[in-house]
């Protein structure tokens, strides 16, 4: 018995130690591999850019044969922390200037350029179980709301909207990034989530959008910059130029982004 207890305990200790590593793999932001082959760049981009940047990456690869683009999508705040801790990024595209400023002031990027603007919308499941008709309904106790963490851009902008409307919203969960808020709405776990208009558009029929009046809405700017420690500086600059080019802007506009 003694030996088996020790064996199990040993296994358990391994599992206990493993918690922290399994936790990091459960988040969408963590996985990137350093760019090994020439012309391969890694772009850290806000979760709300998942659809558009994946498409832009493919177009960029077609326009620049031999170059490959890898993405790590996640909350801008998390990505900024990863970059300032030395994550192997070549380009950073943030969903808010604050997170870009954090990277710039750490000396990891310089001269960011704004390439898009986004506004908020309420996402509800297609059946709209809580009959949400306006953003004001989110203050009701019976409405289960998902928001982003307060340090993530979508959480900051949502708070701004609630301030403009003059309501207090008590969410049931604070998600890691805007895409996971959208997922909770898609799964029907919550009655409403605060996301960007572009997220509602990209989700197609899986969610319905409830527009927020322009007077109450708030926006966020998307800056992009190359990372100073990049070993693929010229490819990284080419990618940034592509995002700012008419071809890049067309993809962003088609997805619902506004010009900065």
């Amino acid at each position: 018995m003694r030996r088996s207890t020790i064996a199990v305990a040993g296994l358990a200790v391994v599992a206990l130690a493993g918690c922290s590593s399994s936790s990091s793999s459960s988040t969408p932001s963590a996985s990137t591999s350093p760019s090994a082959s020439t012309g391969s760049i890694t772009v850290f981009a806000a979760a709300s850019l998942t659809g558009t940047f994946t498409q832009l990456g493919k177009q960029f690869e077609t326009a620049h044969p031999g170059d490959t683009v890898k993405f790590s999508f996640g909350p801008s705040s998390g990505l900024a922390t990863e970059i300032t801790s030395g994550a192997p990024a070549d380009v950073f595209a943030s969903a808010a200037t604050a997170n870009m400023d954090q990277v710039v002031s750490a000396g990891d990027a310089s001269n960011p350029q704004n390439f898009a603007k986004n506004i908020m919308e309420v996402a509800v499941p297609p059946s709209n179980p809580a009959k949400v008709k306006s953003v004001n309904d989110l203050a009701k106790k019976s409405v289960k709301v998902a928001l982003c963490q307060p340090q993530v851009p979508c959480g900051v902008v949502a708070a701004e909207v609630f301030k403009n409307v003059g309501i207090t919203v008590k969410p049931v969960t604070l998600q890691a990034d805007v895409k996971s808020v959208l997922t909770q709405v898609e799964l029907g776990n919550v009655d409403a989530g605060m996301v960007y208009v572009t997220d509602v558009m990209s989700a197609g029929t899986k969610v319905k959008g409830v527009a927020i009046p322009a007077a109450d809405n708030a926006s966020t700017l998307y800056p992009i910059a190359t990372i100073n420690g990049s070993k693929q500086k010229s490819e990284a600059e080419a990618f940034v130029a592509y995002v700012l080019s008419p071809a890049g802007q067309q993809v962003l506009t088609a997805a619902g982004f506004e010009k900065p």
Partner: protein
Amino acid sequence: MVTRTAPSHLTARERARRTARGGASRSVPAPLLAPALIAVAFLVLPLAGLLIRAPWGHLRAALSGSDATQALVLSLWTATVTTGISLVIGVPLAWVLARSSFPGQRLLRALVTLPLVLPPVVGGVALLLAFSRVGFVGRYLDDWFGLTIPFTPLAVVMAETFVAMPFLIITVEGALRSADQGFEEAAATLGAKRMTVFRRVTVPLVAPSLGAGAVLCWARALGEFGATITFAGSFPGQTETMPIAVYYALETDPNTAIALSLVLLLVSVMVLVSLRDRWLRGGSLQ
């Protein structure tokens, strides 16, 4: 309970001393020593990093933030409730696995052991698909009782139980298998009912393993991250446990993240120490 490697009249401490002497007299071959030292460095350096970088002067301030305190309280009580539930339903299952035989028992044991090796986040997804408001069980709980599990402390307890209970079950089952059944048979021959035998003979017989399993279960529940954040979400005071608070604090407030990590490290060390005592007592019970 009876150890087969050493005479049972020796106390555990004496046995340990003898083993240590034997080990010390043998020199370690260089090809084994170098990689072993690298392994030690690899395991110890990150912990040293945590201790070196710790904001020792500001620990109290870093931990007194309301989110940190809430996370600490939530983690402690959910892990404790999880352990209680695991004892109430897990120990009987351990007995069923160890003492009865029926078709499909091996399959059942495999199913029970699965959460031990399953990535916790997968457990979280599975719980979500079963118990969420639109899940195949959760749907009826919501329709019939208006009970929505995700985003509540109940969801935290469920996620922790899913991940941690197998540690208790496997530990206790192993103990039941190797325990001397002679005592139980003797009690039965003397007229004790089966439940009486279980309560008065079986449970005391495996008590040390029961304790060790409970401590392991509690520690695993306290460290749970993947299943919890996936199934229960994250909201301060409701579902944001210590590991989740550490994860998010690292983005905004590294000092709090480190301070919370130190608390978890301290708890882990205490768990190891308490388990060591369990083992010693388990060995010297004879």
